[in-house]
């Protein structure tokens, strides 16, 4: 059930950029988050493609948040980083005569929707307030 480590880092990157409200160089950011610049590039490109951050080159370049922190939820970041893998997962096949498997799937649904609902309500702004 644990999130991918890259999702974990993506959340911390967004938190840091939201807190600092300015352009942060990639070398500074990779140091703070404790990832390699190359890995940062990989995560950063996903966040940029999703419209959350801006990435500029040059001596005064770096990363900055372009979407307001109050409009970014943890769920948003998770979907950006993991959305593809989630939709690819096929559900376990139903077996005739096993009501218990239906009950189990319902339990999974409850847990998943509780998580999703709550994560949609936790915004970056609320975490920093």
């Amino acid at each position, binding site marked *: *059930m644990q999130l991918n480590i890259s999702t974990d880092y993506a959340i911390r990157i967004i*938190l840091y950029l939201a807190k600092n409200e300015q352009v942060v160089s990639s070398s500074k950011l990779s140091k703070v988050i404790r990832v390699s610049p190359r890995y940062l590039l990989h995560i950063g490109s996903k966040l940029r493609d999703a419209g959350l951050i801006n990435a500029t080159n040059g001596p005064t370049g770096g990363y900055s948040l372009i979407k307001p922190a109050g409009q970014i939820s943890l769920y948003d970041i*998770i979907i950006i980083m993991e959305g593809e893998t989630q939709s690819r997962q096929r559900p*376990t096949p139903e*077996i005739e005569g096993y009501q218990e498997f239906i009950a189990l799937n319902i*339990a*999974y649904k*409850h847990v998943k929707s*509780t998580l999703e609902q709550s994560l949609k309500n936790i915004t970056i702004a609320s975490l920093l307030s």
Partner: protein
Amino acid sequence: MQINRTTDYALRILICLGRENRMVSSSEIANTMRISQRYLLSIVRRLKDQGYIRVGFGPDGGYSLIKPLNMISLYDIIILMEGTVTILRCLTQENHCEETPCVLHDGYSFLQDIIECYLRNLTIDMLINQSMDTWQKTIIEKLNKVMGQNQEAGIPSSKRTKYPLR
């Protein structure tokens, strides 16, 4: 954020064995689950090592459950198969955050309490022997207790979990 497929099969195997109350051959389980015996073996090995099932050899061999059904919760099996039920690493690993506790702890740990409450309180026995309405009622009561405790602890309502159980 989803349970692993292997964890799901581990739970289904336990349900299978829990229903039958006898030694079930590996071929019978593999056929019912529609999985290979090899895959089954990889899961069963872990269940056996942790004392959930017993392996019998020979012509009447197979697997049987040795732990009582009401002592096997979803939480137990997820921990066995995946090592953790937390979705964020900072709740399990020390020194993961640059500042401890980090803002994610405050924002998220109450949600983790809710999820763990659900998973700890739902047992294989409930899935097999109770109607969905009955076990859901039980779970909701337990969740209300945890939510009440969170309320006392002063979690702001904007951060409290709302759960969509019927």
